[in-house]
């Protein structure tokens, strides 16, 4: 028996990605972001999320992907891992799907330019639709950022 998971699907640089729905707090439209100087360059700044100051990360910047311009489809996905709350800027987010856990296959070395350790796996939804599941705790690990930046320069 394998368990069914609910996944929020979002788009980033023409690929489809997924995050478990229970990690997602809300999905927001683009809003004014206050720049924070002297921090990682993929941190766009902080937003006012109903009275709480939340940092916002450009996910494409985090993975060293090309940066898209913001459209009215652009969304900020607010995720919560433990005590940590952070927003991801993504190109669009408009779907929640169910997938079976055993449908998730380990990720190959590099998918869409993202290294395997940031991925939980890849799920094939249909013949032409691949969903890349993110490993949030790896994405949010800070001690690896320095190495990562060096690799990708």
């Amino acid at each position, binding site marked *: 028996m394998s368990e069914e998971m609910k996944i929020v699907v979002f788009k980033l640089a023409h690929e489809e990605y997924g995050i478990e729905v229970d990690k997602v707090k809300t999905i927001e439209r683009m809003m*004014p972001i*206050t*720049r*924070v*100087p*002297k*921090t990682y360059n993929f*941190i766009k*700044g*902080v*937003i*006012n999320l109903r*009275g*709480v*100051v*939340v*940092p916002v*990360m450009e996910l494409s910047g985090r993975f060293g992907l090309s940066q898209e311009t913001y459209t009215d489809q652009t969304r900020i996905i607010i995720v919560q891992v433990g*005590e*940590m*709350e*952070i927003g991801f800027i993504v190109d669009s987010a408009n779907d929640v799907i169910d997938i079976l856990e055993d449908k998730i296959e380990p990720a190959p070395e590099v998918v869409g330019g993202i290294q395997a350790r940031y991925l939980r796996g890849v799920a094939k939804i249909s013949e032409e639709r691949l969903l890349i599941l993110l490993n949030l705790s790896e994405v*949010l690990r*800070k001690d690896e950022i320095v190495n990562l930046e060096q690799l990708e320069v």
Partner: protein
Amino acid sequence: MDLNQYLSMFLDEANDHLQALNDNMMELENQPEDVSIVQVIFRSAHTLKGMSATMGFEDLASLTHEMENVLDLVRNHQLSMDDFIFDTLFKSLDSLEAMVEDIANGGEGKAEIKSIVESLQSIVKGEHNKEQPAESQETTAASSHDERLDEFQLSIIEQSIEAGMQAAYMKVTLREDCVLKAARAYMVFQALGEQGEIVKSTPPAHEIEQEQFEQTFSIYAVTTQTLEEIQKAAEQVSEVDSVVLQPLTADNIKDWNKLLQAATASKEEVAAAAAPAIEKKADDARVTETPAKPSETKKKPTGGAAAQGKGQQHRTIRVDIDRLDVLMNLLSELLIDRVRLEDLATELKSNTLTETVEHLVRVSGDLQSIVLKLRMVPIDTVFNRFPRMVRDLAKSLDKKVDFQISGADTELDRTVIDEIGDPLVHLLRNAIDHGQESTAERIEAGKLETGTVHLRAYQSGNHVFIEIEDDGKGINRDNVLKKAIKNGMLTEDQAKLLSDEQVYMLLFGSGFSTAEQVSDISGRGVGLDVVRSKIASLGGEVVVKSTLGKGTTFIVQLPLTLSILSAMLFRLGDEKYAIPLTSIVETGLVTKKDIRNIHGGIRMINYRDSVIPLVSLSAIFECPSYTDVDEEETEIIIIRKGERLAAIAVDDFIGQNEIVLKPLGSYLGTVQGISGATILGDGQVALIIDPNTLIQS
């Protein structure tokens, strides 16, 4: 009765009393003749005893009881304090503290107190000092002196017996679980008063009213009824355990005092062997006068001390700190809305709305200052345990230390207060053990035998500074470097390049200790690095200044962690920032020609007879939409950190506002130059500048 619900109250109060005992003992050590201090100590000990007995912590109760006995003799001038008594009392306090801590950790508060109790008892008996035999005699006399009748009372009883009335000496014992002892005793008095008259009670009535007695008190009564009837009257009062009645007749009244003395003496021997907790408090009942005829000498100190005690008492309630946090969060939400309302009122220009908003602003302002004050605790609550620690430490190291505290009323946020104690203990120990030389070395160096250790606290801007200064031997740069090289912390070539301050910071490296010998107190090399990491975790830092041969100063800088503060809002291009008002000295304008370029591109300006650096915030923050370099006229804010000043260049001032400090979110942690963020009235986030990091060169 389930006492668990009272346990936390008991612990809080017990700690308060222990602290008060410690403080007053220290004070008494400085002025051993001051009986009013003894009175205060006595009262604290007494309350503690009562509380402990009620809660069933018998070891606590019996130890305090013995301390009380000693103190009682002192306050009645039957014993004068000496070193042995001080040491024994301090030791007792230590074991009391240990017991209370044990209770706090879920234990039963049991401890090995026998030896201390014995020393205390030997003090009471006057045996601790054989050179004072006179005193010892006086002591025994005093303890049996209590229930004797004076001539006046004797004659009343004699006359009553002659007039055909019945007289009796009654010993009334209340039940051990009696809650309102004073009330029960009053009822006994009332019942006896109806039947006849009370000639004398021990302890006197006013002490009984204040519950200053154990389970037992005694009464001399005369009555027109039979003795059986008055005994029955007394026994009918509920929660009275027993009433022992001894008739007084014309025959035995003459020798009554002698009889009593003999009885008390034999009783004392038994009592010394029995558990002291239930021992009748003979000493407490030593007062000879009746309440009707109080002697001037006795009454005065009691009254005076009572008034004094009232003055010191703060009426407080204890509140869970989590509730305060919730209150604070709610208030910050309210303040954001308040700013929004203010903006709305200016837009709508409606008079009634403006008036209402103005009132709201005033009320919420008051509310805010109160909530802020709720969280602030004077640092005294940390400092007050230090004098005792320094005293003990100096004694064990055989050094003479003059310990001076200033700025104990400086207030800090409760969360910081809770954490700062241990690091300060480390630093103080360090100052006395490592910093100060031994007495012989001091004499050789031509210094005063007594070393001085200053502990200072003061507020500057958004920070509180705590300084620990000793006038000892200072830090020997070469020794530190030698040790560091030996420990492989750096190479000799590197060592030559370090500034003095950098060398001193090596002390905070882990596994570093320069003491030649590892002592009990410090020198295991685990101290200073722990201190630094603890202070860093509180958002503070520590620096060292030292002059060889003159002394060392450790300066601890801590944030106030105010979550609401007054700030100046300003603009850099289209970005808005806030800077806390507390660190602003003034604002002003400089023209380009007034800015002097020093070598290396550092810009300086003249400011009131001195030259201060001009910091370009737009350059530090890599501001995309503004730079101050090309401006003909630049707005500047003069900021201060301790004694150092600097000017920061900004684009435009927006105004002064109350802002709510919010963290940037745990992902970002601390960002250099920024202490947090706030949400403005328009819903946008503005960053709050940490001026202290801008001044650090």
